[in-house]
């Protein structure tokens, strides 16, 4: 489904980043990192208009030739970035949205772990499994 899923801290360093193993990992790192600019832009644009509505889903950040990059930002400014294969037309906005919601729930669980130190890299196995399930679901 997704080819790369990343969780980025408020300060824009990666908390978690995972991509499908057969692909070039470096490429996705660059892609996710660059997409943060768009996230910032969207947040600052949204900041004025949509304070009350609290729409966390940012939508399509930018399309490249092979991939589509979607973004999502929590209230604590933690960003989720998902890279999806462009050829996968089955994925609509709604599916992406629900995937992000699932990711958010799982992330919340991680944060609820009293042994997790906020700001550390996420090493939860549950979270990992969830991401894996999201990455292999369809493809």
């Amino acid at each position: 489904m997704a080819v790369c899923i990343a969780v980025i801290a408020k300060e824009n360093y990666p908390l978690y980043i995972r991509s499908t193993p057969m692909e070039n990992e470096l490429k996705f790192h660059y892609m996710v990192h660059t997409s943060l600019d768009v996230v910032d832009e969207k947040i600052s644009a949204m900041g004025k208009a949509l304070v009350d509505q609290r729409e966390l889903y940012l939508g399509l950040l930018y399309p490249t030739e092979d991939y589509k990059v979607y973004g999502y930002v929590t209230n604590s400014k933690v960003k989720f970035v998902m890279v999806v294969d462009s050829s996968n037309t089955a994925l609509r906005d709604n599916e992406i949205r629900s995937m992000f919601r699932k990711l958010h729930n799982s992330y919340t669980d991680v944060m609820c772990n009293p042994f997790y130190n906020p700001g550390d890299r996420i090493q939860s196995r549950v979270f990992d499994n969830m991401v894996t399930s999201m990455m292999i679901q369809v493809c």
Partner: protein
Amino acid sequence: MAQCVQSVQELIPDSFVPCVAALCSDEVERLTRLNHLSFAELLKPFSRLTSEVHMRDPNNQLHIIKNLKIAVSNIVTQPPQPGAIRKLLNDVVSGSQPSEGLVANVITAGDYDLNISDRSIKASVPWYSNWKDTLMELKESSLHTATTPWFESYRETFLQSMPASDHEFLNHYLACMLVASSSEAEPMEQFSRLSQEQHRIQHNNDYSYPKWFIPNTLKYYVLLHDVSAGDEQRAESIYEEMKQKYGTQGCYLLKINSRTSNRASDEQIPDPWSQYLQKNSIQNQESYEDGPCTITSNKNYDSNLLSLDGLDNEVKDALPNNFRTHPLQPDQPSESSNSIDGPDHVKSASSLHETKKANTGVIHGACLTLTDHDRIRQFIQEFTFRGLLPHIEKTIRQLNDQLISRKGLSRSLFSATKKWFSGSKVPEKSINELKNTSGLLYPPEAPELQIRKMADLCFLVQHYDLAYSCYHTAKKDFLNDQAMLYAAGALEMAAVSAFLQPGAPRPYPAHYMDTAIQTYRDICKNMVLAERCVLLSAEILKSQSKYSEAAALLIRLTSEDSDLRSALLLEQAAHCFINMKSPMVRKYAFHMILAGHRFSKAGQKKHALRCYCQAMQVYKGKGWSLAEDHINFTIGRQSYTLRQLDNAVSAFRHILINESKQSAAQQGAFLREYLYVYKNVSQLSPDGAFPQLPLPYINSSATRVFFGHDRRPADGEKQAATHVSLDQEYDSESSQQWRELEEQVVAVVNKGIIPSGFHPTQYCLNSYSDNSRFPLAVVEEPITVEVAFRNPLKVPLFLTDLSLLWKFQPKDVNGKDTEEVRELVTGEPEMIGAEVISEFLINSEESKVARLKLFPHHIGELHILGVVYNLGTIQGSMTVDGIGALPGCHTGKHSLSMSVRGRQDLEIQGPRLNNTKEEKTSITYGPDRRLDPIITEEMPLLEVFFIHFPTGLLCGEIRKAYVEFANVSKCPLTGLKVVSKRPEFFTFGGNTAVLTPLSPSASENCSAYKTVVTDSASVCTALVSSASSVGFGIGIGCQPEVIPVPLPDTVLLPGTSVQLPMWLRGPDEEGVHEINFLFYYESVKKQPKIQHRILRHTAVICTSRSLNVKATVCRSNSLEDEEGRGDNMLVFVDVENTNTSEAGVKEFHIVQVSSSSKHWKLQKSVDLSENKDAKLASREKGKFCFKAIRCNEREGVTQSSENYTFADIIFGNEQIISSASPCADFFYQSLSSELKKPRTQLSMHLEKHSVEDAMRLIRKCSEVDLNIVILWKAYVVEDSKQLILEGQHHVILHTIGKEAFSYPQKQDPPEMELLKFFRPENTSASLRPSAEQLSNLIKTSLHYPETFNHPFHQKSLCLVPVTLLLSNCSKADVDVIVDLRHKTTSPEALEIHGSFPWLGQTQYKLQLKSREIHSLQLKACFVHTGVYNLGTPRVFAKLSDQVTVFETSQQNSMPALIIITDV
């Protein structure tokens, strides 16, 4: 897009200027070459008009042209070759670099400086938000915006080198200058020849290339006159002739070379050519088609550029890995063949080659004075005013007229036919389109092009309004005709002129540009034109702050065909991102990386490096480790190819140092690359100091230092003392114990005071030990340093020739500093020998320690600085596992792929200080000197071996072992002492006798005891001997733990060894015991620095249960024994076999029971059963009863109070002499350890001395000091052999009637004492002796006949005489009251049948002297037969001289029964 020096409004007009050709005679070339210039070049600096120019447009309106510039160039006949252009652009870009300091600035710090091109911004906090603010500041202050001069010069050169094309006329020649010299023979003929030549070039079909604007080109005749050489008159006359022939408007006399080329000229003439000519020298190789020249900022080329390029090639060859080849390299030969194109400028080109070679030394325009400069300027002015502009004006007007006349019918006609054709014939359109793509649709003089020509002319003279409307019209026409190339050209220029219109009446039509670009690129496949379009459009958009559009435009043009262009455009796009209102830093970084990639593909290594470095600033330290590693790696490689080796090394170092998430193969590649680069660095400076290596990590604080030899392993039966070694873990508890032991022995040596300068000896220094002082090492004894390495990588590291790096300051033998302190570094084997570990493998992600040794051969101060080694990897990661498993087998076999020699320093931070206030408030660290030992003079060195040392013992078992002391140094040692917390565990024997065999082999089967065979006759009676405790070393000092070792001569000479017997007694508690021995010794010669040395040994003994002995003593009632002596006691000894291991220990035999006391001795065994062999199997108990008597008082008086009397009662036929070693030794030791226990101490109040005295006396009565020693033999089966083990238990009896045990009783945990809130009352209560104690003062016994026959029928009253013996047990006088008629209150006494009266005196008051026995004759009176208890008398006693103490009832004697029978 980066900021440019020029604004767009200047840039575009300067990019499109009227072009003028120059055709010169040979003579003219000769004249100008005196100045090292061609004619066109001569004019170049003056080609911009200084004043405004006026012109009339077709509507006769006055139009003002500002800053008009013309471009004069020599005629060339060949279009520029694409390869040549590419090469030229490449050179331009690589020639233009930011200042050298920037490129070298690879950022290594954690806090980074963001360098955007030539500016640096300090961002103190590495988080983006702060950083963004800084960037915003940067953007707002226009002064701090970045420039990219390489891009500008690229753009300029690109626009200039555009080949003239047919669809546009902007760079077509408008006019031609025909230049002849006055010095020529026939100048007028020369002019006509030149004119014909020009005509031929323009109109002959041989020459297709130089494009001409209109057929009748303006010809302008210039006569060049050399003032210094030629005849001025002649020139004037020729000029007159010319004026007549060509008109005053069409000719000019230019005078130059007013002075001879004289270097010695004192006049300093400015050289306006210098800023153009470097570039020209490159350009001239290919083309003289010079476009407009703009003023550019930074053209000071470095002369070393070429040499750098040369280096590149070398580097490329040197690199072993698959480095890409230079993308332009295969083209180079063809380019060089292209460089000479036409016959016309061969000469000039070659001449310029010369100038280029001469390069910097050449001064241009050496023959020209300032007047000449003015003349040239004047000439240009004149040419433009009189020649060019009127010509343009005329042409515009002509074109305008043509258009107006043509407009009506032609337009409608064309459109009608078009409509008609397109409607009917579909296929023709496709043919049409085909044609369009091929490029040529209209002939050069086609009427459709006239409007375009007019537009171009208007554009050139800056009449943008008119130009726009013309372009707009032309665009419509071309689009109608489906002439896409033409249409795109018109669209492009329409957009530009719309932008340039003064007052900007309409918005910039960006969509025109987009369409144009798309057409150029997709339909016409003409990337050059598309690129020009993009450059212009991006610049315009940028000027309107539409950065994101500009970026999109730039990115869209990046393609595969040109790396250089893509790189430059990507870089500009990156700059656009960062210049946006909210800067997109990450996009900037990403595009910088892309640009850097393309730059490196284009062979622009410096630019590539710069791009990566700039991107690095964004990625650095943000946790994007994969990207960071990639950038670092690229930076490393690029730096390496640019020979910036230090940068390369530091970049590679970053990859390796960071906790890398790369795969093992990747890490291996990184490492190999790093090693390779490092090797190159070190080869460049072979004599320099070793470089610091980053791998493997060294945990400096875990470094341990050990002084002394390695422990010799156990040698046969000899077991060496454990001492200290690096293998032992640090244990704070045990180190504290050792420290206490050492303090004890030092205190004993120094008469009970610990010297103020005392510090415990430390042989092993680690992070827990006290490292604040310089440690002391002894010369000729090795120093071992344990270094903790850790390999963070997933590939194994292979270190070779690993050794320590040190510095040494020798001292002379007297220990004083020599005058000059020499510092020696590694490699002085006569001072310090260093051990080298030849191979040391650290597997992936492994922590490993290396032990390195130094052998000091000289005294002085040593400083261990670090380690030096060759770092390498193992070739082929496949074999890693095998090597890891068998490190020994493979050593020497794995071929080192590569290794570099380097060092790493050991820097240990001391502990944080926290003592004073300043230290608490600030963070300061103490020194750590563990690596700075002072080498001192020779000291003796002791080695201790234990022979037959057991590991397991029964509790109380006595075993004999031997200790060997060996002095392995060259100094005699003395003062050997041993100290232990458990002195009762062992003894070296008293100095009474050394009768046991001295060698261990001889004593194989001997008993540990000294025995004497006795005859069985003497059984049951004690054999008495006596010994003084002084002989056993007891009571000498207050430290029984410190035991001097009885060396034969008290000195152990160098190289000698001595064996001493040593008896061990198993501790009384069951379990595993760790017993620490500390051997202390001194040198015979006093050393100032080291007073003593120590050796440690830890013995581990496992004890198992054997016997439990419990003893009580009670006073015998019988006053007189056989010998008639008064004082005697009964001793009951309970022995229990508690050993549970039935397999091992079969049975215990009690072979002897001895007593030891100052006052008492065992006399005989009261053995009722006559059971001779007192043996106890498992879980059996036995009870012995002995009679003890007081020793002879006389003996006690004559001998010292420390004298003990030993009495042995033997159950076998061998007497163990209990007063000799080792039995007595252990007895005394147990005694002394008993004494150590806290006793109820008498409080010494002096004023109550008398009371005290009494107390003591009273207490004495109930005290005994009898000590029982039970000696036993255990029969043990071990490995189907029967062994006899021997042992002894001690019971110390203090108080009559109290049970005493051989083993310490488990104490109940003391209950929590109630907290008292008042002062405890004075201790008088405790002074009062207890009733029980007082009741022991007097011993009583009744003597009477057991049965008494009395004829009651004869005499009804029976009188029985009874003797009451009163014996004073104390040593004081006692007042005694005997009350016979005392009413007993105890109920059992009442129950006894019948009572009887005493007759006669019934109450006595007596005084008994010390130990006096008094007898009272009493009479009892009975009236019936029966059994009576005579024990009714009550005895009260008190010390006679004490008034405070009340009389106390004395212990009731036994019931004394008498039977009265009737006869």
